[in-house]
């Protein structure tokens, strides 16, 4: 058996098995070096898996050589390949370029456990993405959530603890709801394999437990994905987490839950529950729109930079969901490609913030007057990220906004309202970015700002790498577009 056939398993196993070793690493930077190398390896595996999927279609792997449904199946599709790229790239870039930021926020003796937890988050997230089994998804959800609580709790501010506790309670409720739903489906079908579930659900006569299961799974995953109004855990967690952790999570954590949600809704429920498509859309379109508008509105008045961007993240989850709730090929493509593009934009923004934080004492807006004159490179990257988030042509964000608007317009009168909502929220995004840009470029410097310097070169390099990726994928979106198209087609595969 060649190593290529083992890639789906290695994708998870490599970061997972190296994590315990990282705990034992003592000595300067050793834990960091090992975690970074592992994350890079995971990225390389993700790239080769993507190539394989694009060449030969979905890949399946039988754990322990037990065929599904008796054993656990791993399944890599175009959709999972896209998510794998996002997760592993986000982890690798933040680790590789973020060492100085992490060093400045965390004592040396606590770092080995921190990096071990980082690899466990990575293993958990990719584990969810490649899983083809409903219970297996739960197991890796537990690994990734527990480990992400650790990473957020590493934040230097004392308020990190209460916010992570809130996240822990919410996250546990979300996971429990998901498990209850899976339990109900298991009760009615006797299987845990997703593909098998899809087939066996068609024979189920008593449909009520399945409807309840659909409700529990949707709510549980929506909680994990911070869908409005279940987003309350997100702003504080993102604000008080170490900067690099925020950059990592903002790029991928909620998207993995959305990925599971979409798989359940479209592959498991849609064909088996009458009118499910209709219910899904009528339920989620209002939530998505209110979420987009309200979160953008809060961001308008927020003055802490990280919390402002956290609210913007909640609005972006709304965009992804709005696209998906169209339940059309174009809508799903728009939603899925926005997962990729938002990861790029938010990655650049939070990276730039981490650069800022190496120099300024507080990330509140009133403290950032004239900072762009001292740190021109950092702020320029920040502006590119901002432009991409607003959706200016030439950046990655434009592609998803464009696709989203054309998808929404297919819906007739309702579509026009939705377009207005999207445009209004884009304007709001432009306004809250302008507030930051205005202060940073034209504001008066606070008194003791003389000693401000440009951020460390290595971190700046990482920021610019992500910022330029925004432009590259804005001009040449063929790869994410190809994957999103295939993902949307496979999700809608059996729908009329």
């Amino acid at each position, binding site marked *: 058996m060649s190593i290529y056939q083992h890639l789906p398993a290695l994708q998870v196993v490599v970061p997972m098995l190296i994590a315990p070793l990282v705990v034992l690493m003592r000595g300067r930077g050793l834990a960091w070096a090992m975690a970074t190398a592992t994350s890079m390896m995971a990225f390389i595996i993700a790239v080769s898996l993507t190539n394989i999927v694009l060449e030969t279609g979905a890949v399946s792997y039988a754990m322990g050589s037990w065929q599904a449904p008796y054993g656990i199946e791993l399944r890599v599709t175009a959709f999972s390949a896209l998510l794998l790229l996002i997760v592993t790239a986000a982890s690798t870039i933040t680790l590789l370029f973020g060492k100085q930021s992490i060093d400045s926020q965390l004592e040396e003796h606590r770092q080995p456990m921190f990096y071990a937890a980082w690899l466990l988050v990575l293993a958990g997230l990719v584990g969810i993405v490649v899983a083809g089994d409903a219970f297996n998804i739960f197991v890796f959800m537990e690994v990734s959530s527990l480990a992400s609580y650790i990473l957020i709790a590493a934040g230097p501010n004392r308020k990190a603890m209460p916010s992570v506790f809130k996240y822990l309670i919410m996250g546990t409720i979300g996971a429990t709801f998901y498990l209850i739903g899976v339990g109900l489906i298991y009760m*009615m079908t006797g299987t845990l394999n997703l593909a098998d579930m899809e087939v066996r659900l068609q024979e189920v006569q008593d449909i009520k437990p399945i409807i309840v299961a659909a409700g529990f799974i949707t709510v549980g995953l929506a909680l994990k994905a911070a869908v409005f109004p279940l987003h309350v855990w997100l702003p504080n967690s993102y604000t008080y987490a170490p900067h690099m952790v925020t950059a990592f999570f903002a790029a991928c954590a909620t998207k993995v839950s959305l990925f599971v949600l979409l798989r359940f809704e479209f592959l498991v429920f849609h064909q088996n529950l009458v009118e499910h498509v209709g219910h899904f859309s009528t339920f989620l379109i209002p939530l998505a729109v209110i979420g987009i508008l309200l979160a953008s509105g809060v961001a308008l008045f927020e003055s802490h930079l990280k919390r402002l961007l956290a609210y913007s993240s909640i609005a972006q989850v709304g965009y992804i969901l709005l696209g998906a709730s169209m339940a059309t090929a174009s809508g799903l493509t728009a939603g899925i490609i926005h997962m990729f593009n938002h990861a790029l934009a938010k990655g650049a923004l939070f990276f730039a913030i981490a650069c800022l934080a190496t120099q300024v004492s507080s990330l509140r807006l009133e403290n950032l007057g004239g900072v762009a004159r001292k740190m021109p490179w950092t702020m320029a990257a920040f502006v590119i990220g901002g432009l991409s988030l607003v959706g200016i042509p030439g950046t990655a964000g434009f592609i998803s906004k464009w696709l989203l608007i054309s998808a929404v317009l297919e819906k007739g009168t309702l579509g026009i309202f939705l377009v207005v909502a999207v445009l209004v929220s884009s304007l709001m995004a432009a306004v809250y970015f302008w507030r930051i840009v205005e202060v940073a470029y034209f504001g008066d410097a606070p008194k003791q700002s003389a000693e401000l310097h440009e951020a460390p070169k290595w971190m700046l390099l990482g920021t610019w790498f992500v910022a330029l990726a925004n432009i590259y994928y804005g001009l040449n979106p063929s790869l994410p577009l190809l994957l999103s198209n295939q993902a949307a087609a496979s999700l809608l595969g059996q729908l009329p």
Partner: protein
Amino acid sequence: MVTLFAVFLLTLLVLTAIAVVQTKNLFVAVMLMGIFSLLMATVFFILDAADVALTEAAVGAGISTMLFLATLALTGEHEKPSKKGPWISGLVVAITSLILIDATFEQPYLGDPMAPVQQHVAPWYLEMTPELMDFPNVVTAVLASFRGYDTLGEVFVVLTACIGVLFILSAGPGAPNPKSPRIPTAPSVGLRHHLIPRVVGKLLIPFIVLFGLYVQFHGEYSPGGGFQAGAIIAAGMILYALLEGEKQALKVLPQSVLIGMVVGGAMLYGMVGVVGMLMGGNFLDYSVLSSNPVSGQQIGILIIEIGVGLAVCGALLAIFHAFAARRSVG
């Protein structure tokens, strides 16, 4: 008769749960939680889920109660009065329960042989386990081999939890000094001056550990396995720490050894999977470990159960010591 007993137990379970929510004294709440777990273990046993019952009794009623008490020793036992009324949360809980109850009206009857659960994969497991593994406990076969990847994930959940507790407790004003992490700040002598608990307790420890080892190595034939064994042995060691004091217990099994156990146990499990891969099978395929697939399965399951036992035992003890080593703040 069994039905009547089950109804009685479930009623007690609900009453205990309400009492846990109602009480303002955290010490009382912890004790009630222990009772809740014990009742739950009995319910599992009535449902013929002996493996789960054993786990619930060892972890739920035993170790978690200990950990809660260790936390209370740091925080005090009185709940902070909450400003918000319980109405919204009560409403959400009520609606959720009603929906769940509604769903149960269309569920198959308990033990119905025609239920989907009894028709699909379960018969295959029952039929194939004696043939493929040559031992009677199907639960162990499913847990350790057919769905061994999930169990590997659960071992990593335990590892993550252990890392999390140690990481979080290593910060803040109450953190043990990183330069001399082994010496607890409070002089702890345990119950050394109390003769009766000491004599009786010490008599018990070897039997607890022996029973743990039995559960560990007999998991293929009777209920049990690594998870339960790890918890039971950890309970024995915690009893030792209570009797002889923290310092003495850490001398026997220092924190570094415990972390080594967690890491080693998780790695042992994972490496069995990797070796399977190197020997030409898929990840976690034990059949290739020996020329005879059946004995290959048995070897694989034996090793991974040892890994699970080591990881669970080490993690529980490390967490316990981490709490005990922390100074009470305020």
